[in-house]
């Protein structure tokens, strides 16, 4: 009885086949049942995430957070859900009704779909496909699509601007994210999540910490969280793509955003923190989800820590950081890891890990040196005298001279 999920599935399969159903139909029924259970479980966790996030942000900002409904305010999210459900549902004038309504559903579904490839235990996974890492990238593009649809269908210029900004951000940060995702794929020789987890006898965070950091940064950008939340910058474009959404439609976007953070944390834990790996997990597979969620919530805490500690960056700084810093760094790391991996064929595990770790630290050191040099040049440039404003009747030739 160490693996309840598969035993229950076997038991149901026996009952259904004793009813005389065909093999194919039973597989479909069990598949649908699995999807419903996994999605419901994740969505229930999502409701609790509202409380966790509000409680932790309150601690960061030196206040109490929700503390009126239930003990420590744990029932607050349920009150929130009821409030969202009974709110008036407003359809903006001139909105594209169908697209407007379907966008929040796609946004949440794109997040839920990611859980199909997250391995919860050695024997429990939605679909152990051999292209799981690529699947994560593919589903990410559905999320982008939902945001474009929401922004366009709202018939609001701020919504459209927010959508444009979001897409610029998502497309840009997809590049270092994919390159960083390639590193564990390269080390495990597979794109399947179970294989990657099984290959992590040493957690990949200790082998290629730099890849984990790059993936972490670009994931925060993909989430659209501070310091990369230019798509919702309240002071500039009010609320971005979901400005016109009310009630539960807004609730779906909100739930999707929170769940996306946890999902990304689960993916990072799977790829770099050993996923379900932990003591006694081979004997008792049901411990796998426990370990995975402990690791995921740790990563989720880091994401929140960054979110509530950093100010928002400007859009040009954000894109410059991505294209001029993160992408070359990720490419450089990938090349180094690929070459070292070939050179270290046949060496022992300890040597392999130490050399990889050393190479990562070398890259970090070189990066810091280059950044220092760049910062010195930049400080000098800012320190220079700037062109002064001139009255409008000045000759144009004088203007050129002053520049």
């Amino acid at each position, binding site marked *: 009885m160490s693996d309840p999920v598969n035993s229950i599935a076997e038991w149901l399969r026996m009952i259904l086949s004793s009813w005389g159903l*065909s093999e194919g139909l039973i597989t479909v029924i069990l598949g649908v049942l699995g999807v419903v259970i996994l999605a419901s479980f994740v969505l229930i966790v999502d409701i609790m995430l509202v409380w966790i996030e509000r409680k932790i942000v309150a601690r960061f900002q030196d206040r109490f957070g929700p503390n009126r409904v239930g003990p420590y305010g744990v029932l607050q999210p349920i009150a929130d859900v009821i409030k969202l459900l009974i709110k008036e549902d407003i359809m903006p004038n001139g909105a594209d009704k169908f697209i407007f309504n379907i966008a929040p559903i796609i946004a949440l579904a794109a997040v839920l779909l990611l859980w199909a490839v997250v391995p919860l235990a050695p024997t429990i996974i939605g679909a152990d496909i051999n292209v799981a890492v*690529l699947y994560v990238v593919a589903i990410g*593009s*559905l999320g982008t699509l939902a945001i*474009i649809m929401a922004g366009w269908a709202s018939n609001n210029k701020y919504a459209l601007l927010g959508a444009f900004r979001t*897409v610029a951000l998502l497309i840009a940060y997809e590049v270092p994210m994919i390159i960083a995702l390639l590193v564990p794929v390269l080390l495990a020789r597979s794109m*399947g999540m179970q294989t990657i987890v099984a290959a992590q006898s040493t957690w990949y965070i200790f082998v290629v910490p730099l890849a984990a950091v790059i993936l972490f940064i670009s994931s925060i950008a993909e989430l659209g969280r501070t310091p990369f939340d230019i798509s919702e910058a309240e002071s500039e474009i009010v609320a971005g793509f979901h400005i016109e959404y009310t009630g539960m439609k807004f609730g779906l976007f909100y739930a999707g955003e929170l769940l996306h953070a946890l999902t990304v944390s689960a993916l990072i834990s799977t790829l770099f923190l050993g996923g379900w790996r932990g003591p006694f997990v081979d004997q008792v597979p049901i411990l796998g989800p426990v370990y995975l969620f402990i690791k995921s919530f740790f990563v989720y805490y880091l994401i929140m820590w960054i979110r509530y500690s950093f100010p928002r960056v400007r859009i040009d700084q954000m894109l410059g950081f991505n294209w001029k810093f993160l992408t070359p760094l990720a490419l450089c790391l990938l090349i180094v890891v690929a070459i070292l991996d070939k050179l270290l064929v046949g060496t022992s595990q300890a040597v392999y890990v130490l050399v990889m770790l050393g190479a990562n630290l070398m890259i970090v050191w070189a990066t810091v040196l280059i950044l220092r040099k760049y910062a010195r040049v930049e400080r000098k440039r800012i320190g220079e005298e700037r062109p002064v404003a001139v009255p409008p009747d000045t000759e144009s030739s004088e203007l050129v001279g002053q520049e």
Partner: protein
Amino acid sequence: MTVLQVIFLITAVVTLGGAVLVVTVRNLIHAALWLILTLFGVAVMYGLLSATFFTVIQVVIYIGAIAILMIFAIMLTRRVKQEAGSSVNKGWWLAGLMSLVLFTALVWMFSTWSGFQTTLPVMPANVDMVKVLGTALVSPNGYVIPFEIASVLLLAALIGAVVVAWERKS
């Protein structure tokens, strides 16, 4: 009828219906979204054939890149919401004729194709098909030359984009 066949029929109807709507709806954004549904239907077809790699690649490239680019182009076009004018021009009969010829040719080709009779080759167990594909792409006995030519072409396009966008400092 097996469950797979039912799923195939539903997917086929959705894919073809989406494709018809792409060319008949008047709103350009709606046409682009129907196109996405059609492309998604094709991805499901690949999935039904257990070609997981192609399923995922179809979504990444066609929906993640091409469709989003198209939507952007349409959104940046002015007066996109005004639905004026006919959706066909004077040469519609020529396009119809060409489609008919192509369709007939395809039907004729498939009716004489012997591939329908061959049984599916059994996949050897425990073989990572993605790995086999990757090895074929870079092995000298496989497709390394087309692969490298495609890479050079893409690199040239990338450099071209940089050159076009280059801000020359005088």
